[in-house]
């Protein structure tokens, strides 16, 4: 019980920090960085559910991120639609495309799935890059509106944007928490551990995989839409494979298949990147080997590593208590036998 309270307190503490963060600093740049980090976290959560909990590594994640971003941008700038209507439509478009891609790609497994999605990611990128009349090609799109007012709420300032993105992030985390701790979440994990076994005990693997794929693309699209209206100009680069690798790096460093992993990984890497600004394009010289080393030594990243460590400590403690009790009882019996003797 104590641990639950502790965990709950920790979560409340972090949410509080996130809420008061804009009051702690007047630096708009820091708020900008944090908002971006939150947007990436949403995308990382999407990938986490698919790659971490279901075991299907999709390399098209940046593609769906770009689809979300471009859908919103095109609907607001070219179709001049109401912002929130466009927002919802962008999510629907991304999810429907996710469903179509999922229907086909999920027939493949393991390596084939990774390669298939790699190619799908390339196709999305190349189509965005070459379809000049629609997407503006290499020039990208500019003048994307920031989120429209909801009643008295306006989103013109960086701080307001920060809270909007934070709201979506918390919603994402809540949904992920509920999914992972539900029967559906267990089903995903069962598929990850052994798809054949899952099928044998009566799980419809295709339906579940499709569900998780669509959820994953939905969150990629959500992150993309938020990104587009936050940065307000986008280019085809956001759909390039490097963005997928960035998202994957956040996930692996934080802990693939853990709920806190996406937050931990994204925060750490974003802040370290800020500190290592002079490295810019060379930052992968550090993060690349870290990725590889983590997978070899701590496959579940920082969060998973800490979790395993506390579990081991608990186990040790329990063993020590057992041992002490055994010793006490042994002493008692020997004392008793001495008396008898």
């Amino acid at each position: 019980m104590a641990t639950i309270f502790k965990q709950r307190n920790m979560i409340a503490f972090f949410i509080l920090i996130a809420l008061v963060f804009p009051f702690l600093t007047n630096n708009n740049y820091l708020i900008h960085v944090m908002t971006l980090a939150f947007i990436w976290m949403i995308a990382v959560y999407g990938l986490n559910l698919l790659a971490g909990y279901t075991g299907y590594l999709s390399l098209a994640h940046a593609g769906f991120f770009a689809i979300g971003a471009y859908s919103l941008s095109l609907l607001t700038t070219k179709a001049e639609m109401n912002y929130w209507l466009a927002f919802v439509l962008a999510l629907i478009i991304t999810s429907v495309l996710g469903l179509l891609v999922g229907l086909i790609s999920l027939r493949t497994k393991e390596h084939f799935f990774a390669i298939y999605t790699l190619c799908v990611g390339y196709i999305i990128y190349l189509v965005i890059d070459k379809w000049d009349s629609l997407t503006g090609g290499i020039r990208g799109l500019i003048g994307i509106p920031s989120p429209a007012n909801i009643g008295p709420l306006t989103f013109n300032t960086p701080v307001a944007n920060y809270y909007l993105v934070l709201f979506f992030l918390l919603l994402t985390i809540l949904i992920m928490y509920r999914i992972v701790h539900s029967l559906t979440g267990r089903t995903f994990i069962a598929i990850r551990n052994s798809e054949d076994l899952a099928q044998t005990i009566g799980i419809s693997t295709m339906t579940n995989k499709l569900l998780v794929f669509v959820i994953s693309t939905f969150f990629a699209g959500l992150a993309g839409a938020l990104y587009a209206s936050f940065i307000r100009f986008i280019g085809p680069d956001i759909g390039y494979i490097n963005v997928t690798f960035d998202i994957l790096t956040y996930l692996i460093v934080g802990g693939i298949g853990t709920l806190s992993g996406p937050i931990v990984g994204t925060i750490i890497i974003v802040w370290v990147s800020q500190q290592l600004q002079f490295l810019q394009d060379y930052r992968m010289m550090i993060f690349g080997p870290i990725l590889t080393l983590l997978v070899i030594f701590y496959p579940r990243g920082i969060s998973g590593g800490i979790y395993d460590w506390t579990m081991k400590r608990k186990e040790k403690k329990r063993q020590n208590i057992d041992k002490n009790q055994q010793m006490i009882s042994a002493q008692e019996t020997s004392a008793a036998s001495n008396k008898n003797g």
Partner: protein
Amino acid sequence: MDILIQQLFNGLTLGSVYSLVALGLTLVYGILHIPNFAHGALYMVGGYITLTMMTQAGLNYWLAIVVSCVVVGGLAVLMERLVFHPLRHAPAIHDKIAAIGIMLFLEALVQFIWGADYQTMTSPYGAVVNVAGVTLTMQRLLIIIATVLVMAILYFFLKKTFTGATIIAMSQNREGANLVGINTNRVAMLTFLISGALAAIAVSLAAPINLVFPGMGHLVLTKAFVIIILGGMGSIPGAIAGGYILGFTESLGATYISNDYKDLIAFVLLVLILTIKPNGLFAKGGH
């Protein structure tokens, strides 16, 4: 008609390069059953080594290729020892992520050392020749001939020598190979060495007609994946046939369909194949 012949010839050139890259990838897949996502990075490093050997060290083109083969082959062996060997019992997803990590590292490293600029490699075989009404550069002719030669040597090595036979044996059945006394570690290292050397040869041949830049491995890698799925993962004849098929499809597609979308052809081809046959063409039944 002239255009057609010219394009068929271009397809042959493209296909030769693709085949060489795909051969390395398929060999490694056959032995370790991992798709080596870092193979494109090896290809790219090979390009820079050859280029540097020619411009900085002033080596002859052929000597530069040899140096490049040794360096890239060594790099591949190192990768096998340090990364893939410790991960041999890990879930499949870990190999992929580790390979992606290596790839990102190599790309950043190359960009750090040589910069992000596009560079040209001038080969000593830039002369234009006219063969049967088709004009082509010596370099393209060289690519085609050298590829056939490399393939012939590889074939001879795999089929006629004992060491080569151990690679085939291990790709057929790892435990079985181990049981009859084949040192599987040594074979895995050898395979990575060959795979790296093939990538270095491919890039050294292709670079003079393309450009050298840090991201050059991306498209080649993805296309090589398309090829080995087309030809069956781990199949050597499949990789060769698949490479030429893709080369011809691309060069003809670029002329008769759309030059802008020519890179899409390979991916659309793959998506179609996997849609119809989720385990690739020529997949071995069961597993």
